């Protein structure tokens, strides 16, 4: 198979040849000729722009030769560089390549090394990641390679070292791979700040961004260059085309379930497709779905086809084995989560199966790009909806893909916690002047609107914690010199910084280790580690419970320190592990598509018959929501009254809406008891007849859904929400308030969680305006709570609420009603559970035992 960055033919051979002769040094032309290849137009175009001194964003589909394009400017320049004379100073790094994944850096080293060797270029290429041994890092500092392949965290570390300016003085290019996925996170914020620093070291620095298709290329173009003149943008090259993927939705002969996420019904049909293809990649949205699908496939795997499992909780060694087998084409199918999402290609995948709803349409495009990494052959993919709403979502996603519509989350302003980390990093590198650093930081796109007051508060935070009670002056981490420069107070500060760098916060997790059954881990310690599992899940297990992990059914034996002991379970029924991290919200774009489809019976023809029937029933028994309206149904059931709303704004926004509505309904005397939220709908149940209340405008639905709920109600609920505590923990760790690691003592997740919760409580009651709480609220509003999306929705539906008061449950309400009781409602009902437990004791033993 051809390496993916090269192609046999070009679109316009003649033009390319002419340009190639002008732009490419002789050895490159010769090498292309020997291989019988020629460079592609966009590769030469990028080269030309780079040679004229510009920064460039290259947007191209997978398989378009992005990587070689990104490195051509560096390679050609390095090829024509005069040889170093004896006695001449050693040269520094020429090109820095930054990717979100360690594995990607390693992959590039291999792929780039080959042409460099064949052309005979005097170019050295090395990786530097968290796995790089310290002696190699030391050596890299003294004798840097020409091209250094690394990650955002390593860049932050390099910048914080005291020889950073000298180390980077020869830097010409920064190549940023998978830019679209980097920029949307806090890692992106940190990287943007790092880039600003590099630009300060080397004013003529050029950047080359490589990205998959995005909705707003201009955001990325601004991100790549200094915003000293606001709005400045890099050059843009877009490669369109590539064969259209062949995507279909599984039209199952089985009944598509109302609710649930397992897609178990389709297992035999999925298996049939695996048998029909060479290598199938099966993507799911969560790790628990991956475990379940893997089990189900092996249950029907009569031919014992090599089917493997790959997700982020599994032990690294096991993941590497699967990746290797994949590269050797030794597997017929791999069940995977997003750990395999980014641009790494292994083996000859000829089919992508996507189980569950694809959520964002651009995620779908990315995943389908995995099949058949050659741009001119169509990729093949099958979507497997797990329930009926997902059928609608799959259909919408499919239409979106054909339309070429892409959505990535909108870029948000840079986090203040990340800024705090960066400020300390800068001080570790060299003393800084606040005015100068402020101007530098504002050249980074995510921080372009940072104001001076906030910046000064961040500095104050880094120095002494930024508290109104100025108690910690004597413990300051950075101090101002007489000349007004900020510098670290002592070397221990820099050491602490280096151990805590980065923005990736691990969810508290324990090692899963094999022991003998019944041993509770006490006697036999030596078993194999299978991977890591979230503490929150383990807390619900009791000795003897069984669960799925790493494709096995395991028996929970006990917990000792940071290890969870398990043994092989003979049974076949297991509790399924859930993972906090794996659920993507439905994207705004896709939600709109789903609403449009519901509103247009013409489009139902494309849906499977059973799903179309379901919608027709709904039209008959109730009504279907209009594209821009919000449908609210109310009905009694059992001894409860239900409200079901269908905003299609994603689970996070619905959860927030549920919390706020419950508060309001409580005030209105509806006696709400609970609620449940899915990606599509929200159900609230109460003791009073809400249908009657709304009809008599006590209160009216318009009042209930008024935007003012985002004011006081949100604030009040914010105050003691567990979601805020979780967000605060992240901010506290990233900003350096709490250490992730300390020399000599690793903190376990629990100790960190407990203390940040307590800190949160104390800080909130004593200094609610503290900058870290401000950062927490901003984060929560965009992240876990999706307040901005809720706000948009509330303004969209003003005057457009459709109320249907029904005598019984409607067909559309069935899926969410089935979720009631299945989903844990976090945090808020703890007291009730305690009450239950206490009452049980009283009932069982009588009051006299209570003394």
């Amino acid at each position, binding site marked *: 198979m051809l390496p993916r960055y090269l192609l046999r033919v070009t679109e316009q051979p003649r033009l390319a040849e002419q340009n190639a002769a002008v732009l490419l040094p002789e050895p490159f032309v010769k090498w292309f000729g020997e291989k019988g290849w020629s460079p592609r137009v966009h590769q030469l175009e990028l080269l030309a722009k780079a040679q004229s001194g510009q920064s460039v964003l290259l947007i191209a589909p997978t398989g378009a030769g992005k990587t070689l394009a990104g490195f051509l400017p560096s390679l050609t320049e390095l090829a024509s560089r005069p040889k170093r004379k004896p006695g001449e100073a050693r040269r520094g790094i020429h090109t820095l390549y930054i990717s979100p994944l360690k594995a990607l850096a390693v992959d590039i080293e291999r792929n780039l090394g080959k042409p460099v060797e064949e052309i005979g270029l005097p170019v050295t290429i090395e990786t530097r990641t968290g796995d790089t041994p310290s002696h190699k890092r030391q050596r890299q500092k003294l004798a840097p390679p020409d091209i250094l392949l690394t990650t955002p965290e390593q860049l932050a570390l390099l910048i914080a070292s005291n020889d950073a300016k000298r180390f980077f003085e020869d830097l010409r290019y920064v190549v940023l791979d998978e830019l679209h996925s980097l920029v949307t996170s806090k890692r992106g914020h940190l990287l943007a700040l790092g880039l600003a620093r590099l630009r300060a070291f080397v004013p003529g620095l050029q950047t080359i961004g490589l990205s998959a298709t995005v909705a707003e290329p201009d955001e990325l173009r601004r991100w790549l260059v200094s915003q000293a003149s606001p709005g400045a943008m890099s050059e843009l090259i877009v490669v369109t085309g590539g064969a259209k993927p062949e995507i279909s939705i599984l039209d199952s002969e089985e009944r598509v379930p109302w609710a649930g996420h397992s897609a178990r019904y389709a297992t035999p049909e999925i298996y049939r497709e695996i048998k029909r293809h060479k290598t199938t990649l099966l993507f799911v949205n969560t790790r628990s779905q991956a475990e379940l699908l893997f089990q189900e496939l092996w249950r029907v795997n009569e031919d014992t086809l090599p089917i493997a499992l790959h997700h982020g909780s599994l032990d690294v060694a096991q993941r590497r084995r699967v990746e290797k087998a994949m590269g050797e084409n030794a597997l017929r199918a791999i069940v995977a989560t997003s750990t395999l999402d980014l641009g790494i290609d292994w083996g000859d995948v000829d089919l992508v199966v996507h189980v569950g709803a694809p959520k964002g349409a651009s995620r779908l495009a990315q995943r389908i790009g995995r099949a058949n990494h050659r741009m001119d052959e169509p990729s093949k993919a099958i979507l497997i909806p797990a329930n009926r709403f997902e059928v609608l979502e799959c259909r919408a996603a499919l239409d979106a893909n054909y339309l070429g519509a892409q959505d990535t989350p909108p870029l948000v302003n840079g986090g203040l916690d990340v800024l705090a980390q960066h400020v300390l990093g800068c001080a570790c590198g060299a003393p800084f002047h606040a005015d100068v650093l402020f101007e530098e930081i504002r050249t980074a796109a995510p921080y372009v609107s940072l104001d001076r007051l906030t910046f000064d508060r961040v500095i104050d935070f880094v120095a*002494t*914690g930024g*508290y109104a*009670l100025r*108690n*910690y002056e004597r*413990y300051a*981490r950075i101090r101002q010199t007489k000349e007004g420069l900020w510098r670290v107070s002592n070397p*221990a*500060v820099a050491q*602490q910084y280096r151990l805590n760098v980065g923005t990736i916060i691990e969810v508290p997790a324990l090692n899963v280790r094999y022991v003998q059954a019944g041993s509770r881990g006490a006697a036999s310690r030596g078993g194999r580690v299978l991977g890591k599992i979230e503490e929150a899940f*383990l*807390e*619900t297990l*009791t000795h003897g419970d069984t669960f799925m992990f790493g494709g096995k059914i395991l028996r929970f034996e*006990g*917990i000792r320190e940071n290890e969870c002991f398990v043994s092989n379970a003979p049974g076949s029924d297991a509790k399924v592990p859930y993972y906090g991290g794996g659920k993507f919200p439905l994207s705004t774009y896709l939600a709109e598509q789903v609403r449009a489809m519901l509103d247009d019976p013409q489009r139902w023809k494309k849906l499977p018959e059973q799903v179309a029937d379901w919608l027709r029933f709904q039209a008959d028994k109730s009504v279907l929501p209009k594209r821009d309206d919000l449908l609210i149904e109310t009905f009694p059931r059992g001894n409860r009254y239900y409200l079901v709303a269908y905003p299609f704004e994603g689970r996070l926004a619905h959860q927030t809406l549920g919390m706020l509505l419950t508060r309001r309904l409580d005030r209105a005397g509806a006696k709400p008891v609970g609620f449940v939220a899915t990606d599509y709908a929200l159900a609230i149940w109460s003791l009073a007849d809400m249908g009657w209340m709304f009809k008599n405008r006590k209160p009216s639905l318009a009042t209930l859904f008024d935007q003012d709920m985002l004011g006081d109600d949100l604030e009040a609920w914010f105050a003691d929400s567990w979601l805020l505590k979780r967000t605060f923990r992240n901010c506290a760790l990233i900003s350096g*308030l*709490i*250490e992730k690691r300390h020399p000599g003592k690793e903190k376990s997740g629990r*100790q960190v969680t*407990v*203390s940040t919760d*307590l*800190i949160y*409580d*104390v*800080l909130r*009651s*004593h*200094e609610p305006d*503290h900058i870290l709480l401000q950062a927490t609220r901003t984060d929560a509003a965009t992240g876990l709570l999706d307040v901005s999306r809720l706000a948009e929705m509330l303004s969209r539906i003003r005057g457009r609420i459709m109320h249907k008061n029904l005598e019984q449950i409607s067909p559309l309400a069935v899926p969410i009603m089935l979720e009631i009781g299945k989903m*844990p409602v976090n945090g808020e*009902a*703890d*007291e009730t*559970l*305690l*009450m*239950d*437990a*206490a009452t*049980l*004791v009283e009932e*069982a*033993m009588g009051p006299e*035992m*209570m*003394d």
Partner: protein
Amino acid sequence: MNFSLSRATLIAEADPVGIAGERAVCDRRGVLYFPDLRLLAVSDLHLEKGSSFARRGALIPPYDTGATLLRLQAVIADYQPRIVVSLGDSFHDGGGAERMHLSFRERLEAMMAGRDWFWVAGNHDPDAPADLPGETVRELAIGSLLFRHEPSKVRVEGEISGHLHPCARIVQRGRSVRRRCFAGDGGRMIMPAFGAYTGSLNVLDRAYAGLFRLETLMAYMLGAERIFAISGSMLRPG
């Protein structure tokens, strides 16, 4: 008088527990009150824990001392005890009392005024707190009760201690709830930590091995509105 009314109400509502024959109220805010002795016990205040961390580079909010004292002030106002016993680790480290902000010191002294105040020595603060009134003792025997910081390995009936920061965990309907708690078996009682930044350790942890008669172990878990008395058999480790 107002406060005595509130004290009476608190005691009446509390469903007192017996420790070595002495009646005690487990207050949901984490203090123990003996109405017959008019004695209030509080444990592991860990005052100045924040500044102790700050000294080592973690600049966590300096409001823990204020927060802890405010809560202590409230329970003292409610019960108006004649005797207060702080069961050790009152300060997070030996220099804590010295570092304490003047306003906090004044608040503390105000609540100490007019009652007998005992600082039981703890492992974090073996010596008397600098320049503060009150009497520092290694342990304190009053009636059938013995107050000390660390629970002794040998069973002592009527022993009230702290040190271990007990919490308890239950699982109901697939959900886990963990709370600080008083842990007692009718003979001895281990008190929850009161300080704003204090963590906690499950009563089923190895550190508690041999301390309780398991068949009568009760965890009095701290709720938002009340105490929840949970039998030992319902508790979960971790």
